[in-house]
């Protein structure tokens, strides 16, 4: 490629360089190549570069359920219309070493259950909490998404905001916290952001218009399904209760293995009827709220949260009914009993201040190819609700566990872009103890139905072999038909010493490493803590020992897997 003469010249040129200098030059040349500056004879023009960068912003999102990503994508599109160059990035892919180089950084980030960051953003959050940085040139703002029904509302957004301030960065727009209906707040925040950016750069003469973020009444397609099957997979004598629920819709459900579905649980009919009798409102009275329209009874049954109302809702109620009510949370039925409404008409206004019922997400455990496109299955552990507060546990467990065959249910599909099967000929390692089995039942059914020829290896664990081997006969069939190349099982309480999936992985270290080094994708599904953490430590150890690497190299190896989309987690 390079001529002999030029090569000779190059060699002569570098003869005088030390090893350290050569390494530096090596990096320099890589930089030139990656910045697209090759072939430009002129030296890099600092002025020109700066002129470009002032119009440029970084919009980073931290997402778990995908809301932040969707919002950030909308905002980026709006910004582009205003001539602003937006680098849109997932915080999971964001290089923290770029922070000091940023001019404008805008972060859209959600908060998970107990005030934790979304898993893909955890590395970023850990980094800014564990390091002392100096970012005097950075201009930033944070849009925090959350759910006011959780005690640590928008905690992650607050934390990011506070850390960046601490590092000397300049907060150009105040932190904006948003509840589950975030659209309006987000739009207002971004209008301010654009204004700041445009004033600073003064490049675009056009007047700053608020970005047209479209507010859709229903931005997700809701399906109406019928329960075909609802069985507890655990046998008598088990400490667990895991429901296998099959739902059939009257139309094709657009989903893929790896997706989740959101289910809005219904309120208890007896409680709703109690409310109706307490307030004297006619059950079939039509009410139009901001979100929905229907009879009072329908709205209270299917749409509106009546359990453990937010303090803010109770405040609104107090104002509406002109009563002194302390700052507290309680069920609507209790509120109505203790602080009654004046009459049915007043209750109509109360209905309008109620929040919608928050949906619950469950990994899909079926495959459209295997189970038919009108059908979707989920695998729900009763104790999954234990992390929620007591009332929610009551609502959901009663709702899902008690759903009889033939009853109806409303749900929507939530796409997961990352937790997806690789190409048909690629190998897959699935680690899914407990209800972590759900997406892998989906994967296996899909690979079986589509005839994918990649190898499949499943690690499963539970308490007892006899009572808790979820989907045992299906797994046996997959082994028999060769769909499952390997299966390793850990039943923790069948012997004195507890055995978990990570122990089984360790036992197969050599083969496990051969698989991943040969291109297999690794998926983890199930509880985040301690399972997914213990498994990850085991993976690192295997990469280290089998790959003859240092711990740091092993970590890089795993990072690379992540980047290539070959290491995905669906943990909760």
């Amino acid at each position: 490629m390079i001529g002999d003469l030029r090569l000779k010249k190059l060699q002569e040129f570098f003869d005088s360089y030390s090893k350290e200098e050569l390494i530096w030059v090596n990096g320099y040349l890589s930089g030139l190549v990656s910045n697209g500056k090759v072939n430009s004879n002129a030296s890099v023009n600092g002025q020109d570069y700066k002129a470009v960068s002032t119009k440029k912003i970084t919009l980073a999102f931290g997402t778990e359920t995908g809301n932040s990503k969707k919002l950030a994508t909308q905002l980026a599109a709006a910004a582009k219309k205003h001539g602003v160059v937006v680098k849109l990035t997932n915080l999971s892919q964001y290089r923290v070493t770029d922070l000091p180089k940023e001019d404008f950084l805008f972060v859209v980030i959600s908060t998970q259950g107990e005030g934790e960051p979304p898993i893909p953003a955890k590395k970023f959050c850990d980094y800014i909490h564990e390091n002392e940085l100096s970012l005097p040139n950075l201009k930033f703002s944070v849009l925090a998404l959350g759910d006011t029904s959780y005690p640590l509302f928008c905690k992650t957004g607050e934390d990011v905001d506070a850390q960046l301030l601490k590092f000397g960065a300049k907060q150009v727009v105040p932190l904006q916290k948003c509840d589950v209906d975030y659209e309006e707040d987000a739009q207002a925040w971004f209008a301010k952001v654009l204004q700041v950016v445009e004033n600073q750069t003064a490049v675009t003469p056009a007047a700053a218009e608020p970005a047209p973020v479209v507010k859709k009444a229903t931005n997700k397609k809701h399906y109406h399904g019928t329960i075909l099957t609802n069985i507890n997979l655990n046998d008598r004598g088990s400490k667990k209760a895991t429901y296998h629920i099959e739902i059939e819709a009257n139309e094709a459900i657009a989903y893929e293995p790896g997706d989740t579905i959101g289910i809005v649980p219904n309120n208890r009919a007896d409680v709703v009827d109690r409310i109706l009798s307490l307030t004297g409102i006619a059950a079939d009275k039509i009410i139009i709220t901001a979100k929905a329209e229907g009879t009072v009874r329908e709205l209270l049954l299917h749409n509106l949260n009546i359990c453990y109302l937010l303090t803010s809702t109770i405040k609104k109620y107090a104002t509406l009914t002109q009563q002194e009510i302390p700052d507290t949370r309680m069920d609507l039925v209790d509120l109505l009993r203790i602080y009654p409404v004046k009459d049915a008409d007043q209750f109509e206004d109360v209905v309008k201040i109620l929040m919608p019922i928050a949906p619950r997400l469950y990994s899909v455990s079926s495959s459209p190819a295997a189970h038919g496109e009108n059908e979707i299955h989920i695998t729900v552990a009763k104790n999954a609700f234990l992390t929620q507060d007591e009332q929610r546990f009551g609502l959901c467990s009663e709702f899902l566990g008690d759903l009889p065959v033939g009853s109806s249910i409303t749900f929507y599909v939530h796409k997961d872009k990352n937790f997806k099967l690789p190409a048909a000929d690629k190998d897959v390692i699935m680690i899914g103890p407990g209800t972590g089995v759900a997406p892998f039942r989906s994967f296996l059914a899909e690979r079986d139905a589509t005839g994918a020829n990649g190898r499949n290896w499943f690690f499963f664990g539970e308490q007892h072999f006899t009572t808790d081997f979820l989907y045992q006969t299906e797994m046996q069939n997959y082994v028999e038909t060769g769909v499952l190349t390997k299966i390793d099982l850990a039943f923790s309480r069948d012997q004195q010493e507890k055995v978990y999936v990570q122990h089984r992985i360790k036992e197969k270290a050599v083969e496990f490493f051969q698989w991943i080094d040969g291109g297999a994708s690794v998926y983890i599904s199930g509880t985040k803590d301690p399972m997914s953490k213990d498994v990850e430590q085991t993976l690192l150890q295997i990469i280290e020992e089998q790959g003859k690497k240092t711990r740091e190299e092993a970590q890089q190896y795993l990072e690379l897997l992540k980047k290539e989309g070959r290491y995905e987690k669906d943990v909760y």
Partner: protein
Amino acid sequence: MSEQNQNIDEELGLPLPRRGNKGEVLSPVERIKTASDGLRGTLKESLTSQLTGALYEDDQSLIKFHGMYQQDDRDRREERTAKKLEWLFSYMIRLRLPGGFLTPEQWVALHEVAGKHSTGTIKITTRQTVQLHGILKSHIKPTISDFNLAKLDSIAACGDVNRNVTCSAHPNESEIHEEVFAFADKISVMALPKTRSYYEIWLDEEKLAEKTETEDDPLYQDRYLPRKFKIGIAIPPNNDVDVLTNDVGLIAVIENNKLIGFNIAAGGGLSSTHGNPNTYARLATVLGFVTVEQTLKAVYEVITTQRDYGNRSDRKLARLKYTIDRLTVEGLKEELEKRCGFKLAEIKPYRFTSRKDHYGWKKNHQGKWYFTLFLENGRVLDDELGAMKTALLEIAKTGKANFRFTGNQNVIIADVMEADKPAIEKLVKEFKLDEHTANAGALRKNAIACVAFNTCPLALAEAQRYLPTLIDKIEPLLAKHGLQDDEIILRMTGCPNGCGRSPAAEIGFVGTAYGQYNLHIGGDREGERLNTKYKDNLNEEEILTTLDELFEVYAKERNSGETFGDFSQRKWILN
């Protein structure tokens, strides 16, 4: 897993069916046996497979030779299938206890093993041994290991080998009992498979690098027997072991209070198959007399004859009784004499008068005491009827009584010294064992039921779970006709395989479908005449109506001292 004898079809390259001596196609089990490398098969892999509680298919046949059956809880099949769980597989383990004897220490060990690894119920079988049910695959090795510590094993307790050797159970009934009883153990040891696989698989004994001579098995070779093989020994006049229901029956001959030898009988076997007219229940034919010195050799050569002449293509026609059909009794005798190198002597006269256990306290000629305890269907457990299991444990803990099991599924608290009797008697009274035994009716005390549901894979109908309540309903009928003290022998099996020996009963029930039984009558009380089918497929109501009618006629028309079995034969079968 050698396949050196396998013939290959040259055109197709596929294995041809294996053929026996006479060119017949061998049954699939024959291949499993010869290819098993001394009954090892792939049992070790089967045990470690985490995917299933079952064994690989071939190993399910092989584990029988190690004294176990793979079973599943048939009550739970439907529910577990809906839960996407496999059937609830577990294992039944049967001990090898020649003559049915345990030391008190062994009983304590058995009690503990039962609690640790099985359903907890100790089942005394109709062949004087003990079965534990519901052992999960992961518990098999610990179970065998614990048994081994108590010097107990389950080798060849099931499978196509000689099974547990039975022997008249009551030492108090004969002064030569101990000498005869010793034969049960001698025969059992003589007919043990020589393979070390039991110790390797279950007790982690190192496998010998090279097969040594110790593994050569001149008796079983690599093919074992065509079918199960049973041996029993009786001391007349009591035929409590049902000696003629065995493949080989030995009837002790005593002269001047000395054991001089045995009348040897061959060809007993009670199993048949519904709808297969070629199968039938048969009592053994007495062939002749052998001296004490000739006995082991004679038994051994009956086994080798069956090994060489038995049917290896149809397992339903593979017992010795069908071999005798082919060879004729005379033919078998000739072959046996040829193999033994001596002639069988004339049959010595003998007479059986009963098949029953004598309950309560009895004393033997040496002054030792025996308490025979009634156990309904041989089930030792603590339930609302009494703390039988705790009682036997407490008695065992004294170390002052051995435990003997009878062919009628009862326990004898045995060999108690005069000096120790008060202590044992106190426990017997404390736990009301005497009351329990005395209060049971005559019919119940002479009844037998096999296991059947929920664990036996062959069961078509209930047996041990049902018979107690059926007897509750039959007892008033007997009382109505004044027959409540008649010691009629009633037996029930859940299928026609005869584990509960119902063909050898005065009233025999054989399950045909759930809740339905064939009724057989006309067997004698001594075990020398089988019964005959009288009615097909009776449900409970029909059973009760029929028995009521039969009892009424019997009560009115019987001769003095005539048993129900003999009367039935005369009145309804021969007529």
